[in-house]
């Protein structure tokens, strides 16, 4: 693969292909599509955190005029618990079939128990009230400590941990060296425990779909997701319809951040459409989104780090308990694997526990698990640096992972840009800027694995000599703009001549989820290879016209040229001219590539955060923020910065305000944007970005994943800044006004929580 140099479009802030549609209101998101004869689906949800479902009587609902279909767990394909895992990616269909519709038990308030389709939304809602569910209400546990204590109500009676029925569903351990030996060498050891709250991805677009099932079973799904192929496969699994009969069309997606990597509505709407013979539309309310989808895990962690007096980390031990919600699958891999990865530490033990409790099943959220682990580790590192009387960036530099460092999760790092992020932070004007009263500065770093995986692309030259690129990944943050830049660069034409679209499941080859920061990395590999095949065809055709060898033809500035005067004197043949001659020269020009892409390098970032604490109100305000990251190669710097800025602001919300508040009945009390307080525009300063570009040698343009790293360091950076401002440390998130006020009002000697 050739590294492209001397770029015209790569690195340019071009106008995104879907931009005009989005600034004029034309772009079609999932809830924007309608069909003739369409009816509306609604979900009946459990009011209880934990209850055995003894019976469901839907007969009254079915008789209500206007009701066209009712479905319950009986209609959904069962994946029995005792038959073993049926995996689709990282999702076990045994859990998915129980998450989309409660089967034996309702496991959280909001868990679907039935769904109705009717001619209007109002009738569907009315019909839900007529469904009689006989519940045996069971004791429940919401918090980790309540779920793992002796005598805790057990969600999944078949599960055993240490030989006993347990809500601990699994354990992951990663080891390097021997921590006992490491801590024996340590001269300073600091051990601290932390808690974080579950937080929601907070996408502004609620889940929605429109589904039509024809009499022959041919099914069409319009929905908003992070993977139309995931939607197709999960719907096929859960309804029994073969994948070849399901065309999943990706609508524009109004934010996902990991939360739209599984299905909630699609299997229900498909079954309702099949039963009723009518297209069915379902749209969640915000309250349903907050009660029944996402979030990421809450956690409790203990991190112990040992150093020698010269500032070398000799041993590290992390224990991370993560809430999975109602069904197994919390992101312990991210917490365990990423937390210590930025550092070259000889002895590491990193352990994660997956804990079920009676809250909605967690979904992926931007570097799942990694921000939780980094919060604990980077706060302890701050305390260690302070104990060593070392500058926190110097301390990190002294221990930074580099090429050849073996990470606890397995790989030996290739050339990475972590040290460059620390150097840039150290020399950044922000790091030296003066601070005022009640202001503080914190730094933190973070790592995310990044991913490759399956991607497909088809690149076609139109009859008039322009280009259409089709890929298979929903574009959440501007990936189409990156693809247009790359394809235009390779072909040497204006980027506006390249149209980039997202294909549906029946028109483009399999492409895995938009997740893991993989999309531009993976799709640009298949787009590059497809485009290179096209350039080869164009050279061959020019060679034929000129009656010279194809090797004597080069492609440059959008046209074929003889490589040198020795090859012959011919005027260039442009893409347009060759496209017009295509019918007579072997036919249409196009190429597709499908690959399981490899070579995704992990990403590293270092952040600097300044806060000011309002001593009267207990409000922590972020007043300056700089996010520095090794991004490999910024194909479209505007959307790379956008990833950094957006991730940082999500992290600030996580650090300072966002949390689910549960009432005494085990229900979420703040299922809306008023009380679940995400950052608003007036809360934030500008977010400065520093892009370090250490190209990924295994990628044709040097791309590394960018989207997830920016969330990883944030909570620790904010927490370290608050400590710097107040001289008191918070060991639990969020650092919300009531908590901060309590600390400010406490007698001086009392430690922070």
């Amino acid at each position, binding site marked *: 693969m050739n590294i492209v140099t001397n770029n015209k479009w790569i690195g340019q*802030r071009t*106008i*995104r292909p*879907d*931009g*005009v549609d*989005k*600034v*004029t*209101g*034309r*772009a*079609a*998101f999932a*809830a*924007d599509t309608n069909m003739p004869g369409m009816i509306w689906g609604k979900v009946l949800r459990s009011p209880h955190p934990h209850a055995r479902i003894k019976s469901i009587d839907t007969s009254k609902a079915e008789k209500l005029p206007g009701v066209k279909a009712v479905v319950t767990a009986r209609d959904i394909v069962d994946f029995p618990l005792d038959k073993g895992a049926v995996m689709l990616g990282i999702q076990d269909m045994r859990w998915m079939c129980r998450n989309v519709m409660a089967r034996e038990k309702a496991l959280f308030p909001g868990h679907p128990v039935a769904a109705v389709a009717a001619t209007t939304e109002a009738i569907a809602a009315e019909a839900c009230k007529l469904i009689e569910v006989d519940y045996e209400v069971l004791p429940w546990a919401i918090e980790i400590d309540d779920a793992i204590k002796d005598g805790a109500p057990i969600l999944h009676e078949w599960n055993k941990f240490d030989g006993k029925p347990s809500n601990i569903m699994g354990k992951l351990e990663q080891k390097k060296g021997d921590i006992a030996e490491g801590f024996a060498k340590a001269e300073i050891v600091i051990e601290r425990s932390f808690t974080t709250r579950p937080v929601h*991805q*907070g*996408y*502004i*677009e*609620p889940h929605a779909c429109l589904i039509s099932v024809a009499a022959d079973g041919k099914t069409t799904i319009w929905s908003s997701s992070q993977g139309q192929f995931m939607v197709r496969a999960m719907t096929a699994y859960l309804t029994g319809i073969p994948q070849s009969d399901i065309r999943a069309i990706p609508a*524009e*997606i*109004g*934010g*996902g*951040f990991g939360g739209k990597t599984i299905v909630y509505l699609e299997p229900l709407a498909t079954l309702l459409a099949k039963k009723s013979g009518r297209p069915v539309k379902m*749209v969640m*309310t*915000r309250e349903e989104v907050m009660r029944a989808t996402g979030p990421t895990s809450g956690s409790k962690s203990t991190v112990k780090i040992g150093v020698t007096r010269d500032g070398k980390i000799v041993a590290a031990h992390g224990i991370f308990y993560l809430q999975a919600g109602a069904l197994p699958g919390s992101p312990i891999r991210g917490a365990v694997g990423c937390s210590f990865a930025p550092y070259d530490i000889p002895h590491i033990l990193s352990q994660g526990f997956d804990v079920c409790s009676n809250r909605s099943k967690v979904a992926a959220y931007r570097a799942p698990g990694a921000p939780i682990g980094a919060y604990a580790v980077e706060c302890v590192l701050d305390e260690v640096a302070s104990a060593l009387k070392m500058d926190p960036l110097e301390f990190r530099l002294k221990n930074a992972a580099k090429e050849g460092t073996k990470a606890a999760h397995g790989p030996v790092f290739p050339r990475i840009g972590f040290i460059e992020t620390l150097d840039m932070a150290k020399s950044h004007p922000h790091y030296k800027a003066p601070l005022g009263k009640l202001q503080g500065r914190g730094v933190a770093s973070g790592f995310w694995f990044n991913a490759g995986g399956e991607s497909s692309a088809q690149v076609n030259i139109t009859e008039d000599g322009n280009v259409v690129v089709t890929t298979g990944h929903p574009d*959440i*943050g*501007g990936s189409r703009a990156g693809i247009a830049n790359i394809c235009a660069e390779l072909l040497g034409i204006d980027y506006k001549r390249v149209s980039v679209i997202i294909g549906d499941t029946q028109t483009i080859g399999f492409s895995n989820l938009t997740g893991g920061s993989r999309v531009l990395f993976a799709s640009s590999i298949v787009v590059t290879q497809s485009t290179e095949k096209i350039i080869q065809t164009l050279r061959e055709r020019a060679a034929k016209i000129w009656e010279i060898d194809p090797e004597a033809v080069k492609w440059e500035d959008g046209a074929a040229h003889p490589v040198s005067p020795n090859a012959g004197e011919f005027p260039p043949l442009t893409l347009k001219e060759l496209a017009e001659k295509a019918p007579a020269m072997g036919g249409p020009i196009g190429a597709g590539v499908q690959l399981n892409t490899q070579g995704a390098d992990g990403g590293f970032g270092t952040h600097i955060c300044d806060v000011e604490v309002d001593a009267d109100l207990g409000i922590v305000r972020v007043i300056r923020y700089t996010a520095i990251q090794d991004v490999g190669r910024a194909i*479209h710097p*505007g*959307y790379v*910065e*956008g990833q950094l*800025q*957006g*991730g*940082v*602001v*999500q992290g600030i919300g996580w650090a300072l305000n966002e949390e689910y508040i549960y009432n005494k009945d085990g229900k979420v009390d703040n299922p*809306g*944007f*008023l009380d679940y307080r*995400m*950052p*608003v*525009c*007036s*809360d*934030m300063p*500008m*977010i400065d970005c520093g892009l370090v570009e250490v190209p990924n040698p295994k990628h044709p343009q040097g791309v590394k994943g960018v989207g997830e790293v920016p969330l990883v360091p944030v909570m620790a950076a904010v927490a370290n800044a608050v400590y710097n401002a107040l001289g008191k440390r918070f060991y639990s998130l969020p650092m919300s006004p009531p908590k901060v006020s309590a600390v400010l009002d406490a007698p001086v000697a009392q430690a922070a929580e």
Partner: protein
Amino acid sequence: MAKVHVSTTVNGEPMEFLCEPYETMLDALRGSLGLTGSKEGCSSGDCGACSITLDGRLVCSCLMLAAEAEGHEIRTIEGMAHGEQLHPLQQKFLEHAALQCGICTSGMLVASEALLTKNPDPTEEEVRFWLAGNLCRCTGYDKIVRAVLDAAAEMRETAP
């Protein structure tokens, strides 16, 4: 209950529609009027994705009854560009990469236009407080604020 007949003006065009008495303006726009540019993010007036103007005043269309549009003038995102000519705010949002997923963009643009009509030369702080009712989860607001300030500067230069 019988449906309500409403005569109103939407983006300068006289319009008539029927709605349920309890129907919101957002539902009427997205339903009978077929204007799906305004988005529903929360239906409680917290996210601003459904922002429109009513007689020039910025409102959340999810908090307004459709029947209340009678005799009034509604403007939505669909009325912002003049044919192929984008409004300077729309152009600056594109140039500054001030949108990622795009679900908040309609509301952000409508709210920003309402601000610049009232205050053609806002400070960064004024922009931030004016847009505090419009949630964006993708961008961290940085590029949105820059786009609005840049559009305001350009509009001041070209104003008659």
